[in-house]
């Protein structure tokens, strides 16, 4: 019984999956994560960098003399922009030719 259903399933979804369902259909229906990471880190980065610019001596002293909000904010902003740029540069494509590195 189990062997039966398994063999039909294998032929339906197994090695010929690309013919049964277009993989481009799936990859485009599932949204591009890079835009989400890029947007969130850009937002966090801008907020932290602005906060870091206005950090008082107390905050800077707490972090052993480093403007840590500013530096981490810049780092997150750079990462966010890189993700957005990557997503724009190499969008999810419809053909089978390796759309996303």
């Amino acid at each position, binding site marked *: 019984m189990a062997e039966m259903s398994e063999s039909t399933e294998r032929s339906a979804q197994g090695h010929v999956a690309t013919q049964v369902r277009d993989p481009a259909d799936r990859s485009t229906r599932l949204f591009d994560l890079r835009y989400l990471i890029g947007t969130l880190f850009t937002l966090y980065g801008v907020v932290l960098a602005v906060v*870091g610019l206005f950090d008082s001596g107390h905050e800077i002293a707490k*972090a052993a003399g480093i403007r840590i909000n500013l530096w981490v904010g810049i780092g997150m902003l750079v990462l966010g922009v890189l993700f957005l740029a990557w997503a724009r540069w190499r969008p999810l494509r419809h053909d089978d030719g390796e759309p996303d590195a």
Partner: protein
Amino acid sequence: MNDVLAVTRLDVNALDYGILAVYFAVVVAIGVLAKRAIATSEDFFLSGRSLPAWVTGLAFISANLGALEILGMAANGAQYGVTTIHFYWIGAVPAMVFLGLVMMPFYYGSRVHSVPEYLRRRFNAPTHLFNALTFAVAAVLTAGINLYALALVIRSLLGWPIPLSVAVGAGFVLVYITLGGLSGAIYTEVLQFFVIVAGLVPVVIVGLHAVGGWNGLQHAVAAQVPHGDRLFSSWTGAGTGSWTNPLGDWIGIVMGLGFVLSFGYWTTNFAEVQRALSAKDLSAARRTPLIGAFPKIFIPALTIIPGLIAIAVVPNLGKNTVGAPTYNDAIPQLIGKFLPNGVLGVALTGLLAAFMAGMAANVSSFNTVFTYDIWRPYVVRDRSDHYYLNVGRIITVVGILIGIGTAFIASGYGNIMNYVQLLFSFFNAPLFATFIIAMFWKRATPWAGLAGLVAGTLGAGVMHLAGYHIGYFYPGGHVGPHETINAQMVNFYSAITAFVVDAVVTVIVTLFTTPKPVEQLRGLVWGVPDPDAPDPALAPKPRWWESPAILGGGALGLTLVLSLVFL
């Protein structure tokens, strides 16, 4: 419980809560957006096998980067020092490379849905059911333990009552997995990876700056603990005979941790392998653990170094006196001490995200194994795919409810949960022996598979109990009322026992039972190719940086160089 309360409350303001709230909103959005891509049960349980390698690779590492792991490894760093890197460089990277280079073609190429399903095709139904049941129970209880640990940390850092933390944590995991399935879990894991790194990097930067860099850290630690210099060497005292290394002798480290435990976890734990099975093709599946290996090499910088910094700057850390912070508090203590509002919110978000990811990885593998490996083959067969998709959603809710129950049991009996986890390590330890024989010896018979697993589990249990009566496992070299056993070392030796017993029993039973016909083993065993498999010559040739051999060799080479540097 008093030791937990000893942690200073974090000085959290509206900015930090805002950063946390944005993250939680994004996580819910991931669940809602991922739901649109779910039409079949395979979409729900395996992301429709459509994900690119960088996503599955980061999820592979992130599923293991739960907050228990982060806090625990920082605690080990504080207590044992640099020798803790054995859990990464010996205890993870080689196994991940082996999974990608050697084992993944059998998993992904045979199109199995899960690790237990491989055992069903390779051996028989009883072996399958034994593995599926133990995995399902272990996964749901581990999810509950993660949830409880989350609640404890939130209570000590923010002052929230435990039921509130449990409800919030479980509620968000419920939303994004029930809606988004494995895609929801994986996308959240990738996001969490970057947030936890962003939260821990400032701790390391500020902490190292405060103690005067790496050299200053060595001096500061040496001033705090006797033999502080030993905390900066990975292999000192690991000779057999009279070991002084905190992890015991090199046989236990290399064979027990590096070979049996590590390969058993990374290559057969479905919560990990599932991430690779969701990749879009065999090449991406093989690259999943290899891409994950590179961040794994550097994560100790974010866990062990904070542990050492905590030794230097947190008074009375791990001193075992009333009101003193425990080793587990190392990272929360540093966050509270060094991070101003803003990055404080990011670090807090990273920790909470890691807790939810640790729970979600277990829940998303539990619902798959329950539906595909328990419900569909043994309980309600031959229903529509839509039926099993609904079963998956319902069992996700049930699994999370059981996890919540586990969390409350754990809050009453903390020690019992330690024993439960220990018990499951017995089931895990022999798995690698069974899989390696299954994949490379086509003669191994169905009943030998079951007998080997059961015998290996028993072997680990017996060795564990016996270990407490063996003087070699005690730092003083003898059993005594005032001696404390080296529990890690006993674990390593129990794992070695499990492996040997499993392998020996599998071979012996094979010699007396009938093997499966070779036609049924196509694609499952080395040297028995699947005639239906696509011709490798037709597959698009990967670019050189996508070559599994180059990625795997690069990861091993980098690990070797770093191991020599930190010898």
